[in-house]
């Protein structure tokens, strides 16, 4: 559906056409604004692979994630394969990413032992960013992390790591008692605090981690889609139509820039929280 077909509609306003829907999810025949619904997050698979009774649907987000993963591997292997003491341009860029995670996240949050977790945090940050940034890559334009399974899977990776580290560094029971009874509070407070801390650290953390990333990407994509659809929906040979369409177009450009920022920020927050959880497992709170 291009601009030419919209213009071909001639003097008749789009919303007055008999079958005026630009997008297929509008349904009905009232020609109201076809607001994008949650359906835009579901895709029918390009292909399906059945392994041991489990069907693997190669939908758009799955394909984008696979392409992105390959890109990450190829890019960082190319950049870091033979690093020089005096770096070239690409190596400098890669090094900036590495020192950003090492100094800004691992050492900042975890401390001296943080260096051990740099490879994990580095992979996590760039993986999440890659999932997010598909939202503004032309023609792809779908943030993979707006499908809740992706952040959930990453939370499922982080949860056992910090649980295991906590039990290993503080003791299998001490980890939970340290978490439930932070020192220096009046005794009765613990009646309320202890169960809250337990539930918060063990159950809520992975859920909030998942939902924060998912909801940000979901809302961002919905917003972008609304203005992109409105740009086409509102256009008509009238002052209101042109102004409305132009305003919607400008908004979608601004929101694309905003999304670029949010995508990097959410990837950073996701990684930072993973580091915080690892850090609290390594050292009991004082």
């Amino acid at each position, binding site marked *: 559906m291009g601009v030419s077909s919209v213009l071909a509609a001639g003097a008749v306003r789009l919303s007055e056409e008999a079958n005026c829907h630009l997008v297929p999810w509008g349904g009905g025949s009232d020609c109201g604004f076809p607001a994008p619904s949650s359906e835009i997050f579901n895709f029918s698979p390009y292909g399906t692979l059945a392994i041991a009774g489990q069907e693997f649907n190669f939908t758009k987000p799955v394909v984008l994630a696979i392409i992105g993963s390959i890109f990450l*591997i190829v890019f*960082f292997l190319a950049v870091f*394969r033979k690093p020089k003491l005096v770096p070239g341009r690409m190596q400098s860029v890669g090094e900036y990413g590495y020192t950003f995670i090492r100094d800004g996240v691992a050492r900042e949050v975890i401390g001296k032992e943080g260096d051990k977790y740099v*490879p994990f945090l580095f992979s996590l940050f760039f993986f999440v960013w890659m999932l997010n940034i598909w939202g503004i890559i032309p023609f792809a334009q779908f943030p993979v992390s707006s499908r809740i399974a992706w952040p959930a899977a990453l939370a499922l*990776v982080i949860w056992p790591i910090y649980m295991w580290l906590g039990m290993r560094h503080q003791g299998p029971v001490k980890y939970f008692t340290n978490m439930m009874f932070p020192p220096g509070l009046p005794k009765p407070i613990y009646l309320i605090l202890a169960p809250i801390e337990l539930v918060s650290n063990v159950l809520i953390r992975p859920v909030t981690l998942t939902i924060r990333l998912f909801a940000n990407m*979901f809302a961002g994509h919905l917003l972008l889609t609304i203005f992109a659809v409105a740009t086409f929906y509102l256009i008509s040979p009238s002052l209101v139509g042109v102004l409305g369409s132009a305003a919607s177009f400008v908004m979608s450009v601004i929101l694309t820039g905003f999304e670029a920022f949010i995508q990097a920020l959410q990837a950073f927050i996701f990684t930072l929280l993973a580091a915080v959880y690892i850090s609290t497992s390594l050292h009991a709170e004082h």
Partner: protein
Amino acid sequence: MSWVIAASEGEGANVLALPLYEIIIALLCFFIVFGALAKFALPNIKKTLDERADAIEGGIKRAEEAQAEAARLADDYRQQLAQAREEGAAIRAQAQADRTAIIEEARTEAAAAAAMVTARAEAQLTADRAQTIASLRHEVGTLAVTLAGKVVGESLTDDARAQATVERFISDLETQASSAEAGA
């Protein structure tokens, strides 16, 4: 816009659904990326960054060492210079002392030699004088006796008395001479 059409045919619209296949693929993707980066990419860059930090810190350390070495050398040099100066002064003082000693020695030797020459000359003179006196006395005696014999008309030559008279006479002469010498 094929994806939009695809969306309309999707399975339901529950955005909170967690399809197992998607979670498995997500885990696979993440672990493959993590494994590849952690094994093949990041150790290299970690090593390089560590090496660079080492090179910079090592450079600073080497510069500090060189500076310390230079300071130490300058110190040594100054110390050696002072030592050399001291030694020079000592040598000069020694030479001065030696010179004085040599001059003194030469002077003493010269004085001794002079004294010896003087003594020898004096001894020679004394001997000559004694010899002269003896020969004079003999000749004067002989002459006197001869003269006296000629006056008296007889030989007094072998006379013991004449001999004694001559002896007394000469002794008187000597006494007069020595008193005249003392007077002079």
